[in-house]
């Protein structure tokens, strides 16, 4: 077996044995600092393509997991007992698509105050973290998602969030004020709206 194959075996074993997703540096700590770990991970990606187990990257961490199409054989319902509330799901989505985002910004989008517990539940699940303060009056705390969020929802990065590109292109991730100014600038102005409204009346 050539050295690179030996390394691939080593990376495979380390990642397989690990209880947590690992960064390239963490893997190197086990297989050697000089090793071409990225190359080995790419090899493993090919070896496991189409198998019952796959090697995936979530954020900057790698791990093995079962193939998605086999979920029906494995699905466990225990997790569903602590199902997220609608407020929880929406708050999580707003944080994920807008991060870093303040509580006030979340509330502005939802049009309703969020209870203290909603963000707590998301933090307890390990999906959301405080992400520093915004340098505006009051210095409000901002929130962002974690590596655990990417891992749990099977996202390689935030760019993989469902519909992210479409939402961005449609300006739906911009605040209302910004979107409004954009509409006025582009000539698709309030006047047009009035006519529409008038016609429909």
């Amino acid at each position: 077996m050539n050295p690179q194959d030996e390394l691939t075996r080593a990376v495979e074993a380390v990642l397989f044995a690990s209880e947590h997703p690992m960064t390239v540096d963490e893997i190197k700590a086990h297989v050697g600092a000089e090793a071409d770990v990225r190359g080995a991970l790419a090899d493993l990606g090919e070896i496991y393509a189409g198998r019952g187990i796959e090697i995936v990257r979530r954020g900057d961490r790698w791990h093995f997991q079962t193939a998605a199409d086999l979920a029906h054989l494995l699905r466990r319902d225990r997790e569903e007992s602590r199902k997220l509330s609608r407020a929880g799901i929406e708050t999580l989505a707003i944080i994920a698509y807008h991060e870093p985002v303040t509580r006030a910004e979340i509330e502005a989008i939802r049009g309703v105050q969020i209870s203290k517990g909603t963000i707590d539940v998301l933090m307890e699940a390990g999906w959301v973290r405080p992400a520093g303060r915004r340098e505006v009056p009051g210095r409000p705390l901002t929130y962002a998602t974690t590596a655990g969020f990417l891992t749990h929802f099977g996202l390689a990065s935030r760019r993989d969030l469902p519909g992210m590109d479409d939402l961005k292109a449609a300006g739906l991730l911009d605040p209302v004020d910004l979107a409004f100014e954009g509409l006025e600038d582009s000539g698709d102005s309030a006047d047009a709206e009035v006519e529409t409204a008038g016609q429909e009346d």
Partner: protein
Amino acid sequence: MSEEAPEILTIDIDGWEGPLDLLLALARTQKVDLRQLSILELVDQYIAFVNEARALRLELAADYLVMAAWLAYLKSGLLLPRNPEESPSPEELALRLQLRLERLNAMREAGARLVARDRLGRDIFRRGAPEGLRVLRKANWEAEIYDLIAAYGRISARTRPVMHVVAVRDVMTLEEAIERVSTLIGSRVDWTTIESFLPEGATGTYRKSALASSFVAALELAKQGRVELQQKSAFAPLYLKASA
């Protein structure tokens, strides 16, 4: 839910998370893209909903009523002849409402798509019984020879017996001074200064010592009635004479 008729919404009042949420649900019943939404129709839907709720004597939170009042105002603004002075214009307010509904809707749909994904621990699994990786920390203790020697010096300095040595100093003892003063006083007839009782050639600390001892000797002899003392004022010369 969005397919349901407004009449059914009335019995579901507790399910709404605020007026905006209710507005979005009503907007969806128009079955158009939110960009084509008729705000006037939405206002009518909302106000009808609130009135119906009141007719059924359902408790409505204040913010639902505030929204109803605001929408009624918005509707009149949109229908009445325009007042160019008014800012923001009713059209701008309507557009902003539509933009807010679009954004809430986008996040609601995104959230639904997010939680419907194949999720780790529910649909996708990591290895059930990983061996685990262990890090064995091995301390590499460091110390220099100087540290070692200095430490021993420190201990020795701290714990070795301490010996106090008093330096030998040139002094005249009290006994010596009494002997000397009582001998010399016999040979003096008149008052003589205390300094004249000091040994000739005495200098420095020895002279100071001799003076102090001679003074104390003079006091002692005076107490015994063998010497008389005389001084005109404080710090004036001190005179001695044998008692008569």
